[in-house]
C-alpha cells in the first residue's frame, strides 16, 4: 500500500530504540530501514513509502512504513 505521510521524526525508547514518524494527525509509523538522513529527532518531513504488512518488528509501535523517498520540510 503506497502512501504519503507528513509529520515529525521521533526516536521511540522501546527496547534499544526505534525511528518513528508521527504524522500531523497523530498516527505513529515505525520507519523500516530509514536512510541515515532521517535519523534526526524533530525533523519535519514528507515521506513517500509503503506499509509493509509482511514485516514484523520488536518496536510494535504502529504500521511499518518503508521509506521510498522523502522531503525535508522547513
Amino acid at each position, binding site marked *: 500500500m503506497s502512501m504519503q505521510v507528513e509529520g515529525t521524526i521521533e526516536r521511540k525508547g522501546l527496547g534499544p530504540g526505534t525511528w518513528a514518524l508521527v504524522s500531523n494527525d497523530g498516527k505513529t509509523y515505525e520507519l523500516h530501514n530509514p536512510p541515515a538522513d532521517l535519523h534526526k529527532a524533530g525533523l519535519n518531513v514528507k515521506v513517500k513509502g509503503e506499509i509493509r504488512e*509482511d514485516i514484523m518488528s520488536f518496536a510494535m509501535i504502529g504500521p511499518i512504513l518503508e521509506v521510498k523517498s522523502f522531503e525535508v520540510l522547513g
Partner: protein
Amino acid sequence: MKKLLLLGLFLGGLWLAIANFTGLAHQGTYDSIVLDFREDVGAAQIEEQVQAIAKQFNISPRLNSEFSLADHVFVVPGDQKLLRALKKSEVRKYTEFIEPNYIYQAFIAPNDPDYGKQWNLRSINVEAAWDETKGKGATVAVIDTGISPVPDLAKTTFVKGYDFVNDRVEAIDDNGHGTHVAGTIAQSTNNSFGVAGIAYEANLMPLKVLSSSGGGNIADIAEAIRFAADNGAQVVNMSLGGGGESQLMKEAIDYAHSKEVVIVAAAGNSNENAAAYPARYPYVIGVSALGPSGTKAPYSNFGAGIDISAPGGSRDGDDPAGGILQNTINPETGESVFEAYQGTSMAAPHVAGVAALLKAEGISNPDEVEDVLKQSALKVENDALNHYGAGKLDAAAAVKLATRGRITFCDFFRWLRDNGYLNPRFWIDGGVIALWPKILMVIGSYLLAWFLRNFFPFTWGWSLSTGLIAGSSGLFFLKGIYLFDAPQWPFRVLGSSIAELGGAIQGTTTLNPIFASVLIPLALIVLLLGHSQWKWFAIGTAIGMTACLGVSAILSPAMMWMGDGIAARIFLLVNAVFCFALARLAVQPGGASTT
C-alpha cells in the same frame, strides 16, 4: 437416653479433634529456646536462675543481642526435650514465657551484584520459585535479533539455533534486543557478576529473524517457529509483532502447538485496544507490560488478546531505574553493556521464563502450562478494559500450583475459540466477570418476583423476565467479548445492568449513584404504568434492581463520590428497599401480564 449418648459421642469426638489439631505453632523447626524473664525480677535473681539452669542442664544461656538485656531475653541451644524440661523446672516461675526460637527461612537472594536493581524479578516472586526449579532441562527458543555471547551469559547453556536473516548457523545479535530478551529468560545467575535471569539453568536456542534495524519478514519468523518445534524447544518467545494476519504464520504456530511448544508473544507497544499479531493468534500467550508501580505501562496494548501481564518497565526520561536491566550489546560497537530497556518485548520473556520453569517441573501440555500461568497469576480487580488478562505473572505461585498437580480446565471460552467455533476476530476474556454476584442477582430477582406473586398473583411474561434481567445483571457475559480493532464499550453497555450503566462507557465498575438508585425504575414505572405489557418490564426492573443493589451493598459497594464504606452500603440498601416497595405498589392484586 439415645440422644444423650449421641450428644456425648459428638462432644467426645469434637474434643479429640481439637486436642489433636497441632496448629501452625507446632510446625516450624528450631534448635534453640527463648527464655523471657519477667520484668519485675531483679538482675541478681535472673543471674542466679541463669547459673542454676546452666548447671542443671549443662548449657550456657546467652543474651540474644546487646539489646536483650533490657528485655531480659536469653537464648539457650536445645531441642524439644530441653524445652519440656525447662517448662517443668524452677526457672519457669521467673519467666513470662519459654518458647522455641523458630528459624525463619529467608529466600536466598542470588549473589549477582546488580540483582538489587531488578525490581521486576522480585515483583514476580522468582526467588521462591527457585526453591523448586531453575529451569534445568527446558529449552527456550528466542525468536529475535539473535543472541550475542555477552559475559553474563557465559554460564548459560545454548543449543543449536539458526540465523534466518543471513542464512547461517551462528545467530549472533547485531542489535541488542535479542540478547537482552535472552538475559531476562536465562541470564547467568549466582555467578557473582551482573544481573540475574528467571530460568537460568534452562537452555537457550537463538533464532535470528530480525535484522540489525529491528524488522524481519513473516516467512522467516514462521520458519523459525517450525525450526524451534523440530529441534526440541519447549517454549518459544516472540518479542515482536506487527503486520497483518498470515496463514503461513498461523500454520507454523498450530504446528508448534501440536508438538507441545508453549508460544509466548508481546502484546505490542502502541497503547491500543488489541494485541498485535502474533500475540492474537490462537495458542499464543499474549503478554501486556507492567511498569514498576505494577500498573499497565503507558505504551502497552490491552484488551483483546491479552492473556497475562508481566513487568515490561516504564522509564522516566533518561532515568534507567524503571526499566528492565539485563546484559546486552551496544549495537554501535558490539561491546557488552548493561542496559535498562522498556517494552512489551521485555514483558513476554518473563512469561517465557516462568513457562520454562513449569516445563522443567514436568508439565508437557502447553494448554496446561497456560492454565497454570493464568490460574496462579495475581488477579486484578475491576480490570474492565482488560489491561492485565488473567492477572499479573507470579512465578512462585505458578511453580507451586504445578507441583501440587491440581489443575482445572475451566477456560471454556478459550476452548471454543481455539477450536474454531468462534470467529478468530472475536476474543473472549473469561476472567472479567465476577460470576457469583451476577448469579446471585439473577436468582435473587426471580425469588423476589416469585415472593410477590404469592401475595399478588400475576402471570409470568417475557416483559417481566426482560425487566428482571435488565434490572439485576444485564447480559453480563457480553462484557467479556472483544472484537479485534473495534471499541469494546458497546459490549460493556449491553452487558451492564441498569445500575451499572453509569460507569459502562468509561469502563469502571464503580457504581454511579444516579443509575444505582430507585430513580430509573421509578421513571420507568411512571412512564409505563398505563401500558398493559411494558408495565411488567418496569416492574421487572424494579425487582431486578432490588436484587442488584442488595447484592452490591453486601459484596461490592464501591460508589462514585461515596467510596465503599458504610455510607455507600446504606445508600444501596435503602434504594434496594425503595425499589422493592415500588414494585410492590405497582403490582396490583389480580393484575395479569400478557404474554
